[in-house]
């Protein structure tokens, strides 16, 4: 079903919206959650939680594209679950690796409970990614949004793993410089 039609169903509070979302994007949401949690059961629960969150968010939201919105929900729900430690024993290496790498591009320290809001920080990151060549931005998101492994990225973009690592390192450094220049603290 087309995105517009699915969103209309949400706005009409028609529960077929959930069915249609599952049919069209169920596997996508599941896959994002599974990468984080490495557990089929928990990924399925996250997928179901995603539908509930979507139901509670639309309306007022009218997301475009719907896939990215649902993916964002799945990712957030799965990360929350991972952080609560429910999955750490079984897997979640991708998240740990991602966190280790991201720690390299943290700008100045802010006082506890201070610093920029995540939403505002996201706007800066979006602007930064738009300022970079498309492939660079895409690869950054494959690594830190989709949590792809280096090997998966190398295969996807038909390049060597060392080149992917180098490219990501430079992007992280550029992001840190970008945020520092704008006096962003986290």
């Amino acid at each position, binding site marked *: 079903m*087309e995105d517009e039609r699915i969103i209309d169903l949400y706005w009409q509070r028609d529960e077929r919206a959930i069915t249609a979302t599952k*049919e*069209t994007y169920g*596997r996508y949401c*599941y*896959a994002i959650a*599974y*990468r984080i949690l490495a557990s*089929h*059961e928990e990924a399925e629960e996250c997928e179901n939680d995603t539908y509930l969150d979507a139901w509670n968010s639309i309306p007022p939201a009218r*997301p*475009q*594209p719907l*896939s*990215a*919105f649902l*993916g*964002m929900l799945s*990712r*957030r729900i799965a*990360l929350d679950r991972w*952080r609560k430690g429910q999955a750490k024993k079984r897997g979640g290496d991708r*998240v740990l690796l*991602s*966190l*280790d790498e*991201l*720690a390299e*591009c*943290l700008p100045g*320290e802010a006082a506890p409970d201070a*610093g920029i809001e*995540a*939403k505002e*920080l*996201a706007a800066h*990151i*979006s602007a930064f*990614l*738009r300022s970079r*060549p*498309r*492939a660079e*931005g*895409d*690869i950054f*998101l*494959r690594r*830190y*949004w*989709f949590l792809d492994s280096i090997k*998966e990225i190398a*295969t*996807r*973009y*038909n390049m060597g793993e060392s080149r992917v690592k180098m490219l990501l390192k430079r992007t992280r450094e550029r992001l840190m410089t970008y945020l520092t220049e704008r006096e962003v603290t*986290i």
Partner: protein
Amino acid sequence: MKADKLQDAIGMVDGDLIARADMPPDRRRLPRWWRSAVAAMLAVVLLLGSLWNIPPLQGSYAIAEASYPVMAPYPAKDSTHEEYDAWRSSIDERQQYAGAGKDLDSFFSATMSTFLADEEQENRVYSPLNVYMALAMLAEVTEGESRAEILALLGSESIEALRTQANAVWNANYRNDGAVTSLLGSSVWLNKDLVYEADTLNRLADTYYASSFQGEMGSAGYNKALSAWLNEQTGGLLAEHANSVELSQETVMALATTVYYRAKWTVGFQNTRTAKRTFYTPGGELLCDFMNQTLHDGDYYWGEHFTATRKRLADGGYQGYMYLILPDEGVDPAALLTDSEALRFMTASGEWENHSGGKLNLSLPKFDVAANTDLLAGLRSLGVEACLDPATSDFSPLLADDSMPVWLDKAEHAARVIIDEDGIEAAAYTVMHEAGGAPPTPGEEIDFILDRPFIFVITGPDGLPLFVGTVYTP
């Protein structure tokens, strides 16, 4: 932890950036990218014969060339936002036609059984969508019982309903953005000595995007022009067949339709994992190249007599897949093509009750299968008979002089499907024989080894079966 906050913020970046990163990467600049691709093409040529003796004349051929919708090019790696948006818009524009062929399942199932299920145990390829378009055009040029039989086979209530559907099917399956080519080509080959109904020819051009040509039937030049058109539409990959197609002096009109489809896998096979492995053909063992890949979120389906998986194709939408259907041990693919459950699966676009997901090790032989098929006997068995017989055929919408006996004289089609990729390196997998009807244990890693005759289905941008085939010998 500060990195958590950064991770959360990354999770909230603009949705269009996420969608863009989730698109298949552009590999156009990489050498030989298309070899890691699926290339398939098919041509159907319907020749209408006549008993009248028509004198040959000289002349040129092209009357009108079909004008296809223009799509924005697939964005390059360093493309701007505007370029990306333009491409996305042109893809979205196709979406208005989505679902146009949802009522065609019974036609697809019936014809797949008829044209593929034989006992020869040879590679076969058939394009349900292409034959649908050829028959729709045939319905346009017929009337009475001839048309009624075709409409019944296509499941259309009226010629008007068929026009609407066929036009939408054409558009829903059209892609031509530099990265994906999915094109249903049509053409009409007219006899220079006859006067045709202009309204009918205009309808063929407007509704079916059919180019029209007129020339001397049976002449070397006109045959060559038809061959050239077929080759052009199919990227030259059906040259052997296309170059042998001939129009006879008695041919009143030829309808030629083609499907040309080329797309990359969303995630290609790694060259280094390709390895030699034994394929068990009906005639014995054959050592061939198997491409290997681990699908971390692979789909696994099963039915009473088969198991299946699918691999996604980068078609700019969400429906392009190659489905790989492995009959249970001892079940012949041809037999499976007459099994109602298996046929239902082949037209289900992955919507299947017995479905599981998880880590799946796929081992797929490279193959290049081609087949020529005479459709006439099959059409007759499917109930399309009146237009085949000069005594009962009615082609009155075609010619200004409708007293002339015209009938469907030949219906030939040729198809070829190639899947390929580069490189060889040894890899080993365990062969696991899944029993039909049994789901995998949750969390179980599945080995899906296509080392005996199997069936494939390629679905196009709208999820309809563009190609179905059997591989007995890769």
